[in-house]
């Protein structure tokens, strides 16, 4: 959507967002059309386009005309590929989070095009907005994962404690050598290991009475 906004607001032909992952690899996250998507993929793959330079330097990489000698010299394969795909100008704007570049907003033009000062600032503002959205989305995804993890851990904890209680009470009821809850836990863990079961699954079976406690108590 942001890529589409760029086209409307900045008078560009195509736009795309490339993201940097934790290992520094680049991937295409959004593109205003499949045509620019192909080019972005190309830019990432060749490891020598303006996006790569933008990530490395954290600076805007503006190229008014890809057929010009300096562009051909700087990014020979990218410039050739882009021109073949029908583009003449490319502007890469960094998506910065403090000192890190987390992505690149790339603007493409089918004609030679100098980005005006105002458009450069507007483009950068859009890149910054995209950065904020991205950070929020990542944080939210992480929060959801932690929440699920937390729920799982708490449920796991409950059922293991309950199973310790079941085993301790059963050992007493069956007039065996009574075990206390900590000894019950040792029995539980030993049984789960020797039968290749997950501790939580075994505990749940005991609590739900689908496994006879004597099986575990007798080791």
């Amino acid at each position, binding site marked *: 959507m942001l890529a589409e906004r760029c086209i409307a607001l900045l008078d560009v032909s195509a736009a795309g967002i490339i993201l940097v992952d934790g290992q520094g690899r680049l991937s295409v996250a959004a593109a205003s059309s499949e045509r620019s998507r192909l080019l972005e993929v190309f830019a990432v793959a060749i490891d020598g386009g303006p996006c790569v330079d933008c990530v490395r330097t954290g600076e805007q990489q503006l190229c008014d005309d890809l057929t010009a000698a300096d562009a051909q010299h700087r990014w020979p394969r990218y410039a050739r590929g882009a021109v073949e795909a029908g583009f003449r100008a490319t502007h890469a704007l960094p998506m910065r989070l403090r000192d890190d570049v987390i992505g690149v907003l790339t603007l493409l033009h089918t004609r030679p095009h100098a980005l005006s000062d105002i458009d450069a600032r507007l483009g950068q503002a859009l890149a910054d907005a995209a950065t904020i959205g991205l950070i929020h989305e990542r944080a939210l995804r992480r929060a959801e994962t932690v929440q699920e993890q937390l729920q799982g851990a708490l449920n796991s904890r409950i059922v293991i404690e309950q199973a310790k209680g079941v085993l301790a009470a059963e050992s007493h009821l069956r007039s065996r050598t009574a075990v206390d809850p900590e000894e019950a836990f040792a029995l539980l863990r030993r049984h789960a290991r020797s039968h290749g079961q997950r501790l*939580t699954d075994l505990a749940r079976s005991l609590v739900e009475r689908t496994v006879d406690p004597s099986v575990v108590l007798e080791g």
Partner: protein
Amino acid sequence: MGGDGTDRPPDDEAADGDLPRGSEPVALGHRLGQVCADLLSRVAVDGAGITVMGSLAGGLRGARDQIAAVGALSSRLEDLQLTTGEGPCLDAFARGVPVLTADLAAELGRWPGFAPSALAAGAAAVFSFPLQLGVVRLGTLDLYRTRSGGLSRSQLASALAAGDAVTEALLTDPDTDPGTGEDIGWLPGVHADVHIASGMLSARSGMDVGTALLRLRAHAFAHGEPLREVARRVIARTLDLTDPIHDDPRPTPDPEDDHP
């Protein structure tokens, strides 16, 4: 921490499997305890605690843990909220907004089970803040005062900032990292005895563990006894709750009914 909760060893034995842990078991709890301790002076409260839960329904049936507690009443208030199934922490979690009660004595009708017991324990004002990011909630930061009185604007700001810092810590700390699988060593397990006692009562009586937990809660509420003490007595076999007739000569209010 009121001398309690330190009587349990760090529970890495409760982790599923025996993979070595990647970090110190107490690292996160220690950090959060520091956040709570700092709040005492900055927000002028007498105690602060952090309770985590994955969902309200889970929290109501005991899938919750108090991962930090400073002040003599913090663990008692957590115990009371599990006992009665109501209170500021649960409301803050359910609604996703701070629940600020400057004068608990004036809120008896809001929490008919929790409020009188909390007052009797010595709490006069309670403030709970949800730990949340967007719609995702992880628990609450709970503050109390032993004298009634509201939070000033700057105290409120400090408390909100502390809540955000705790949320951030929960989201970024390696202890809670999803990569560690079912490793639950970072959870102190403050309600462990309650769940052990539920399992015992279930085995002795044939009732399911959910019903057993209700029996423990009902007994604690009816007798004004901390739930954790009731649990310890059940574990030590000095309290028999298998026969409801002989347990409570008085009618026992069902704390579950108080929560919609």
